[in-house]
């Protein structure tokens, strides 16, 4: 799987959503699944998928699917 696929898959699993509920414009608090609870499991899913440990500042800044791509670059994960 490419990083792009892994990243997408982490969203689907981390937020417990169906594949057809996923889109690249997802943002925090725009769907019920991505609330503060979903956010924490999304962060865990990403950490597991890419074998990284996200810093506090990055977890609190992670506000959308797109923003997350920028953040992951810091961890040498290119999407």
């Amino acid at each position, binding site marked *: 799987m490419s990083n792009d696929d892994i990243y997408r898959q982490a969203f689907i699993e981390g937020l417990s959503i169906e594949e057809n509920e996923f889109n690249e414009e997802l943002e925090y608090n725009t769907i019920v699944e991505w609330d503060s609870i979903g956010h*924490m499991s999304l962060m865990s899913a990403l950490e597991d998928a890419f074998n990284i440990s996200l810093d506090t500042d990055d977890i609190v800044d992670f506000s959308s699917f797109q923003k997350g791509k920028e953040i992951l670059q810091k961890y040498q994960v290119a999407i």
Partner: protein
Amino acid sequence: MDWLANAKPEATCLINEHGRHYSYEDVKYLSQAIATLYSEDQVKSRSLILILAENTVESICAYIGFMRLGCAVMLLPGNTSDNQLQDVVTLFEPSLIFSHTEISSISIPLNKIRLTERIANRATYLFKTPWSNLDLHPDLALLLSTSGSTGEPNFVRISYQNLIANTQAICDGLNISDADRAITTLPPSYTYGLSIINTHLYSGASIVLNPHAMMRNDFWKLIRTQRVNNFGGVPFNYEMLKKIKFSSIDVPSLKYITQAGGKLDTNTAQYFAKTCKVKELKFFIMYGQTEATARMSILSANDHENKLKSIGKPINSGSFRIIDEDGHVKAAYEEGELIFQGANVSLGYAKNKNDLMLGDRNQGILKTGDIAYCDNDGYYYIVGRKKRFIKLYGHRVNLEFVEQQLSQSGFDCACAGQDDELIIYVHADVEKHTIFNQTKQLLNINPRCINVIHVNAIPRNAAGKVLYPKLQEFVSA
């Protein structure tokens, strides 16, 4: 009930999300303005007022204003669904509904007033209903829901005396003064969230009304710019703070943090005891129930690292005892039901408007439904629960209710689990995601905590009762 009586008028009372400060005098003015929008001949001073409360200046002012007017106030979360609202309004017939959102799809004629910009900074409405029920018990001050946004409406009847007793005891126990400044992390309709607001108002302290989750940058910005010195959280909040490495977050103004709303996992409790020691923060673990107005015991965790599994000692106006099935008091280290006695024990429950006339059914004694023991030093430890409910993100969910609702939809199932994990056992023929989606809608919560497990059959005894301990044996491969 006047929450503003103890404060200096010029002191800061509320701070909104944009950092605007409202003094106690401002809050008095706004709360009066909201509570008297309908003239006295339409809304009498002893009416029932339903507030769909959010952490906003307007919601808190409505709460303060109607209480000062002598009304009984019923609180529900701002995101209460229309179905739930319809049920509650039909059963209780409040005279007025306060809401930040339009109420459109309920079948009750409502007369709407939108608050002017002079009073409200955001869309805020008062809806006058056709009712003006005044048959309320004179002691009744507040109605808080035990079922959150799920299940049959059930409210705890809280008296003025309950509110004063519990607020004073918490202020004493935590040493709250007018120098304190809290930030909201929980809904004001939730007993623990409300008690943080009440204790700070009562002490003439200030409250930052925060709409952001604790893992958002905006939350930490608010904490820092407004020099917040305390916050509270349920176990989920603390799991999250640990995950975002609370130990590495620097907030110089912070003085103490409190935890309640369920048992904190021991590892997490140790992490916070240790981290708070390094940060020179006080860490309080508390135990409470809506039925006890808010809180029953406090553990000052910094001083008692060897007692972190404990819920501490009772607040100074109350006492605990452990009893067996026959009501006999148990000795130290013997398990039994935890009984609380104190002036903060609520009057009883209300399932409809007729119950609002009832007097004190509990007489100061609360059977908590929790199984506990006491050690030689007088510290109490919860080991289990008598009743079949679990807490999901701090809110009670009745397992019976979930089973009933699912079986009404045609799914034979059995519910079990622990706090923050609801397990639904269902026959392998049923698609897991069907149950998952049904439950998600039913409970209106984040589905992370729902786990559906396939079984070959639901084990039952001859009388048809589910044999819960046997469920594991029937899990299908």
